[in-house]
């Protein structure tokens, strides 16, 4: 394969040098051709995001549940991600990024014109942020993994009690009425928040605030696990959670640096930020534990890592490294407080803290991006950057996403409740969803 493309490349070069000037001009006017380097990076980045879901998130979440629900947690994540992939190619891509958005008002919220990828071919391309393009199939795949992981993240608040069938049905509806419109609003040209100038480099709003708020609403409607909070429910394997954390961190480079859509300097900036903001957040969570009179813990380290990754997501290519370090630290401390102090007081059962880390970390990241973007703080903003107005735009984008996600999730969850019922029976919940829902045990 490499040989063939090398030959083709050689032909292209000799053709360009040999043909007369008028032919070269005609070639320049023709459709832009993807740079294989960018394409190759984006294919790699896409697979890295898949690594975040399976096995990254599956292990991270799985380790945090009780051993009787290990398989159920991991299977829900895997199956929800697979479902999202199929929905994405059928109507998701069209709704989020299709070539022909509906005229007028509605076009700010959804797009269209590519059901079953009807507008995509091997030769079609997607624009990046410069003159370059990448192959559209690569872009479709990259964005597909984002839809998949966002749905999987939501499940963190409802595991250990939600029916598998309800998860699947909720997934289809939620993607359609929540994820695709928000992705369109934030990332697609003509989208409401995109046109407003909201900065969201890699999905702080679309993925994390969206997933976190949806998770919160879902767990409110679903109710607490039997025995919560009086029965002890310690994580069954922090070893696996740590392994999952590592895989998430590695995969997140595809998520963040890939969101530049090119292998250029901004992707490099996103990369260094994904290192240092995360490192800072991991340590600051442990520090917060210590200050709070606890011991610096492994789970604290892992939680801090995720909080940092979440917070740096919107800021990845929109911040200097030192802005990112501060952002990671601030997000980590706020998330620690929300998860360890605020959640027990409020009394809702967000099993794996999808809201406490993704929702809160996402909000801190999204608003903070409006600050660290400033060139005065080492960010990439231009000379005309005005922090005050950018922060207002960021807050507006956050508010719109929160409202949209909350209302959409309530609709999707009640629909699932109506059709399949939401919760497993009390007997199954006590015995564990592994046996009750899947007929297997994780450990024999």
């Amino acid at each position, binding site marked *: 394969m490499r040989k063939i493309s090398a030959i083709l490349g050689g032909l292209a070069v000799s053709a360009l040098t040999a043909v007369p000037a008028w032919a070269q001009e005609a070639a320049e006017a023709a459709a832009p051709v993807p740079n294989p380097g960018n394409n190759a990076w984006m294919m790699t980045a896409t697979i890295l995001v898949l690594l975040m879901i399976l096995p990254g998130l599956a292990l991270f979440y799985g380790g945090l549940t009780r051993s009787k629900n290990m398989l159920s947690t991991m299977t829900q994540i895997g199956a929800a991600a697979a479902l999202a992939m199929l929905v994405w190619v059928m109507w998701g891509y069209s709704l989020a990024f299709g070539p022909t958005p509906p005229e007028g008002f509605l076009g700010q919220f959804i797009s269209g014109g590519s059901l079953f990828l009807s507008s995509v071919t091997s030769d079609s391309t997607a624009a990046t942020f410069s003159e370059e393009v990448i192959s559209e199939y690569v872009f479709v795949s990259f964005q597909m993994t984002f839809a998949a992981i966002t749905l999987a993240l939501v499940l963190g608040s409802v595991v250990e009690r939600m029916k598998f069938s309800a998860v699947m049905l909720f997934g289809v509806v939620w993607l359609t009425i929540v994820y695709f419109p928000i992705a369109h609003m934030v990332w697609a040209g003509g989208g409401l928040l995109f046109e407003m100038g909201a900065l969201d480099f890699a999905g702080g709003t679309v993925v994390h605030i969206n997933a976190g708020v949806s998770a919160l609403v879902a767990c409110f409607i679903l109710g607490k696990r039997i025995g919560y*909070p009086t029965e*002890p*429910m*310690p*994580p069954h394997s922090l070893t696996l959670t740590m392994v999952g954390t590592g895989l998430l961190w590695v995969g997140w480079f595809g998520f963040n640096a890939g969101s530049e859509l090119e292998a250029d300097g901004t992707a490099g900036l996103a990369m260094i930020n994904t290192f240092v903001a995360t490192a800072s957040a991991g340590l600051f969570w442990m520090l917060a534990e210590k200050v709070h009179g*606890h*011991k610096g*813990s492994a*789970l*604290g380290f892992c*939680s801090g890592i995720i909080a940092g990754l979440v917070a740096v997501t919107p800021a990845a290519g929109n911040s200097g490294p030192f802005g990112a370090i501060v952002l990671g630290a601030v997000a980590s401390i706020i998330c620690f407080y929300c*998860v*360890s*102090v605020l*959640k*027990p007081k409020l009394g809702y059962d967000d099993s794996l*803290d999808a809201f406490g880390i993704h929702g809160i970390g996402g909000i801190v990241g999204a608003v903070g991006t409006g600050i660290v973007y400033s060139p005065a703080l080492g960010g990439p903003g231009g000379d005309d950057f005005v922090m005050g107005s950018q922060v207002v735009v960021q807050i507006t984008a956050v508010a719109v996403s929160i409202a949209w996600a909350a209302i959409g999730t309530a609709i999707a969850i009640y629909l699932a409740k109506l059709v399949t019922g939401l919760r497993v029976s009390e007997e199954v919940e006590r015995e564990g969803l592994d046996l009750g829902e899947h007929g297997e045990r994780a450990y024999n």
Partner: protein
Amino acid sequence: MKFIIAIIKPFKLDEVRDALTGVGVTGMTVTEVKGFGRQKGQTEIYRGAEYSTNMVPKLKVEIAASDDIAGAVVEAIQAAASTESIGDGKVFVLDLAAATRIRTGESGDAAL
């Protein structure tokens, strides 16, 4: 014959085993157990959720010994397993009515 049951701290197993080999014990059975005595449990914290465990992990060592070494066995365990702090464990001695070696059918002291 005596049947000796010792509850010890898990990390003391190797020292206890060496000490028992020294007084002529040729076999033992070890089980991981949980329990409590005067030692209170531990507190675990996961993302702010505190669980106090009132059972502490220990090892149970079971030894069948002839009457003439039983006293030495108890002393050896006591000396080897002690850290002189709370939670070191206990040794119980029971009378053993009979013993049979399955392979040969030998019984009594010969089976130990």
